[in-house]
């Protein structure tokens, strides 16, 4: 049988999803199930004076006295813990924070009841942004508004900056975004007397089980988390939220099943948001364009509380750590601040830390190119870490295990025909058309293990994944894993891995949904870890099953196990192809008493994999845009990618992940803004205000070349699900800046901003200086 890893096979899970037979959390029905609605704060910051509730099932903080708040830990200095009670106690700190909860037979009735709950608030002065939060005399949301602070110096950056021939400086502002999966969050909970069942569309089932058990004072084994089909996650569904705790508590309290399904307004205003940061970045360089030093200050607007399990440190610290990127920079200093404001907490969103880090760095590199009148490709070429230097330790301490940084840059230029594009750009400009070409090079940490999480201080995330591979008596192979999927296609890609290992067709492999009572323990699906950490566990378990199968075959064939070889789904004695058994016969034999008791019954194995620190993917992206100087609109004419995600499991799926990431990146660059007014009121509460890309924003011409340098992780894979979202904002921002000849310093690049830049570009003539603001 030829290998299936590497082949573009259509997905196994699609057959139910295409025919309306998927089962998402909102589709679940249990007898007697009640519906839940939350009463949420309309104020960004207020004291709760009183709550008056009608008769009926209405609960508030006072009813949940025994429930522990969400209070994630982080090891190391500079961390100020916060505690978010699942229903606000005394004070609300963002619009949308749950204040009370109601239960009724239908959602319609629950919302009627919620509307009758009268909460008397005493408004407090809001802290709408980081400037307000850091100003003297600012209202304090906790004992301090700075929830995390860290600084780091590598080498002698100040000395380098004093002596440097060239210094460029810019301040980049990324906008507050939100993942906006098409399916919101949701929970069904039921207590059967001994077990609390929680069906929820989480990315981190093991962690949610631990956190719910801790919060509700239950033994961990008394909580059973089951993950149904899930409509996208992108990081937002990796956190523990107040609603999971409250709904679970209601199930315990009421003894009936309860269901809560998040609506779009709740998702846009009360689920974790992401990204809002100000990054001050300075580059020191020689006149030849060689980078000598980097200084950065990253200030994150992280909202009102830390999120579990990652905390508010994750995003801004991630920016600082990835900022040097694929460039060889000997000296680096950074300062990171995570600052509390009266907005919802920020959490993980595809590209965590990396998207904003790459945006800031790639804008700065382009400014350096402009300053030195060098081609942006040439400046990058002179600074990318060369292939002979791996493992390479970056100035922030990340160890790049391998990479093809220069090759990716050359390949993307060849793919896009860069020289020709520049000529076209000049011709277009003569005709009054503004074309721009933008590059973004990046390196991406994927498949992180426990050593990386511990070194960062992320004590709540273990780092390993687990897999159980079990061959049933009929030869069907069941795979239980610790990490759930939200559309990535695990039921297919993991089956491909096992299929090759056991020489079976993909149809014989069933990857089951995560159920913490049956699936091994693990960290979950985030940070591009499934094809590295997850695949490592699956391959290890399948490898053990393979050895066991060989031993059973050897007993059946009366041969030595090392003489048994596999071919086309059969096991036979080396050199004697007529002495063979089928895999099905081996599976059946595993559950009978074997002759002479030579082999113990059963054919299954459990394995865990805790990957070494990280394996790094890398890529170069190139965007070509046309800017309309009259309307301010930006059209992406072409998008080119040269990426190295190691060995590819399924090219169809890799392509889909890449396109999806690029679309999200384009959204972040041009459209998406979870805007708040100066008083902390959300302005984007529907899909009419929070604009996610439609097909019209997606360029038709997207071309990709894969470099496929294998990692030294099991299978040679690297993570790849975030790349598009990491690089696209930078590539598009650089392309717009190139088109209008003025620096882009904030996202999203709205038509108003474009018109402003067009005016500046035509006034200044050339993008000569970094923007000081």
């Amino acid at each position, binding site marked *: 049988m030829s290998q299936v890893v590497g082949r573009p096979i*259509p*997905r196994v*899970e*699609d*057959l*139910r*999803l*295409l*025919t*309306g*037979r*998927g*089962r*998402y959390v*909102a*589709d679940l029905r249990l007898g007697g199930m009640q519906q839940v609605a939350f009463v949420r704060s309309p104020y960004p910051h207020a004291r709760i004076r009183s709550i008056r509730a009608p008769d009926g099932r209405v609960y508030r903080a006072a009813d949940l006295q025994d429930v522990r708040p969400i209070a994630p830990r982080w090891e190391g200095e500079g961390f100020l813990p916060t505690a978010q009670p699942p229903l606000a106690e005394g004070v609300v700190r963002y619009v949308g924070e749950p204040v009370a909860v109601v239960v009724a037979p239908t959602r*319609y*009735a629950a919302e*009627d009841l919620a509307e009758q709950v009268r909460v008397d608030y005493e408004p407090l002065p809001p802290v709408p942004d980081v400037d307000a939060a850091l100003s003297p005399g600012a209202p304090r949301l906790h004992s301090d508004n700075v929830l995390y602070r860290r600084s780091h110096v590598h080498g002698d950056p100040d000395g380098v900056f004093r002596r440097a021939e060239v210094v460029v400086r810019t301040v980049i502002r990324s906008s507050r975004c939100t*993942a*906006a*999966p*098409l*399916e919101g969050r949701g929970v069904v909970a039921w207590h059967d007397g001994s077990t609390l069942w929680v069906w929820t569309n989480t990315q981190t089932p093991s962690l949610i089980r631990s956190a719910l058990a801790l919060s509700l004072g239950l033994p961990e084994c008394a909580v059973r988390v089951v993950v149904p*089909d*899930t*409509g*996208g996650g*992108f990081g937002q569904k990796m956190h523990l939220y107040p609603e999971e705790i409250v709904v679970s508590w209601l199930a315990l309290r009421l003894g009936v099943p309860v269901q809560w399904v998040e*609506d*779009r307004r709740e998702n846009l205003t009360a689920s974790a948001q992401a990204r809002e940061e100000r990054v001050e970045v300075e580059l020191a360089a020689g006149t030849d364009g060689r980078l000598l030093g980097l200084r950065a200050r990253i200030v994150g607007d992280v909202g009102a509380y830390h999120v579990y399990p990652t905390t508010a440190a994750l995003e801004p610290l991630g920016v600082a750590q990835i900022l040097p990127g694929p460039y060889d920079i000997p000296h680096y200093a950074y300062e990171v601040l995570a600052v509390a404001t009266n907005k919802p907490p920020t959490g993980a969103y595809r590209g965590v830390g990396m998207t904003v880090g790459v945006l800031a760095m790639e804008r700065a590199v382009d400014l350096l190119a402009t300053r030195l009148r060098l081609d942006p490709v040439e400046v990058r070429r002179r600074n990318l870490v060369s292939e002979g230097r791996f493992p390479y330790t970056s100035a922030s301490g990340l160890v790049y295990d391998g990479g093809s940084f220069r090759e990716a840059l050359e390949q993307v230029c060849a793919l896009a025909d860069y020289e020709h594009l520049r000529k076209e750009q000049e011709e277009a400009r003569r005709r009054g058309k503004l074309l721009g070409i933008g590059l973004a090079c990046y390196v991406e940490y994927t498949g992180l293990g426990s050593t990386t999480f511990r070194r960062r201080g992320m004590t709540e995330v273990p780092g390993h994944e687990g897999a159980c591979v079990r061959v049933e008596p009929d030869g069907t192979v069941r795979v239980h894993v610790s990490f759930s999927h*939200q*559309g*990535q*296609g695990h039921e297919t890609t993991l089956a491909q891995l096992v299929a090759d290992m056991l020489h079976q067709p993909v149809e014989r492999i069933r990857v089951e949904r995560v159920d913490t009572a049956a699936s091994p323990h693990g960290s979950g699906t985030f940070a591009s870890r499934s094809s590295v950490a997850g695949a490592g566990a699956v391959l290890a378990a399948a490898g053990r099953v393979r050895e066991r199968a060989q031993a059973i075959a050897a007993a059946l064939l009366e041969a030595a196990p090392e003489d048994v070889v596999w071919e086309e789904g059969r096991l036979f004695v080396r050199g004697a192809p007529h002495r063979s058994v089928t895999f099905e016969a081996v599976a059946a034999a595993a559950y009978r008493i074997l002759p002479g008791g030579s082999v113990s019954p059963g054919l299954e194995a459990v394995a865990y994999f805790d990957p070494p620190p990280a394996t790094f993917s890398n890529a170069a992206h190139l965007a070509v845009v046309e800017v309309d100087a009259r309307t301010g609109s930006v059209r992406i004419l072409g998008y080119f990618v040269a990426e190295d995600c190691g060995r590819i499991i399924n090219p*169809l*799926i890799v*392509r*889909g992940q*890449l*396109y*999806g*990431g*690029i*679309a*999200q990146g384009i959204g972040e660059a041009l459209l998406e803004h979870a805007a708040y007014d100066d008083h902390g009121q959300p302005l984007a509460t*529907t*899909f*009419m205000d929070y604009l*996610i890309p*439609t*097909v*019209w924003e*997606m360029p*038709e011409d*997207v071309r990709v070349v894969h470099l496929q340098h294998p990692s030294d992780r099991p299978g040679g894979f690297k993570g790849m699900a975030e790349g*598009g979202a990491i690089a696209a904002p930078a590539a598009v921002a650089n392309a717009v800046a190139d088109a209008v000849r003025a620096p882009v310093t904030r996202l999203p690049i709205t038509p108003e901003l474009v018109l402003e830049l067009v005016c500046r570009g035509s006034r200044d003539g050339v993008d000569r200086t970094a923007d000081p603001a």
Partner: protein
Amino acid sequence: MTTRLRTIRLTVNGSTHEITVETRKTLADALREDLGLTGTHLGCEHGVCGACTVLLDGRPVRSCLLFAAQAEGHEVTTVEALGTPDRLHPIQQAFWEHHGLQCGFCTPGILMSTVWFLQHHPHPTRDEIREMLAGHLCRCTGYLQIVEAIEAAARSVGRKGP
């Protein structure tokens, strides 16, 4: 709030149903809760995302923006009426082969719009496909493989008839 009930008759996927619903109940909720047809998904409940699209007398509508009572006497078609896992509709087959879905949440609505679209545009241009698809939000795919799937579906529906 007092709730008013109304008994309505409607045809869904070829079968006639009589259901008693609150007058304020949306068609989407009635399909999902009263008729158990959970293939129709709710992504925004304000008419933007298109996940809840069904056919009403053959034309695509947002079932979150219609009251169930408005469907009285009409014919509704949902994703459950297309193919089955072992006998996919040609449009479903094309989405499968071209990886036109990831999480699958927006997919039923897009499939229903595509059914109507290909009946009226049997030989669509790429721009026509993009224009139709612009009425739907998908957060996973970046749309390109959906466009490829619809192009392939047009070719195969054209060969076999709708």
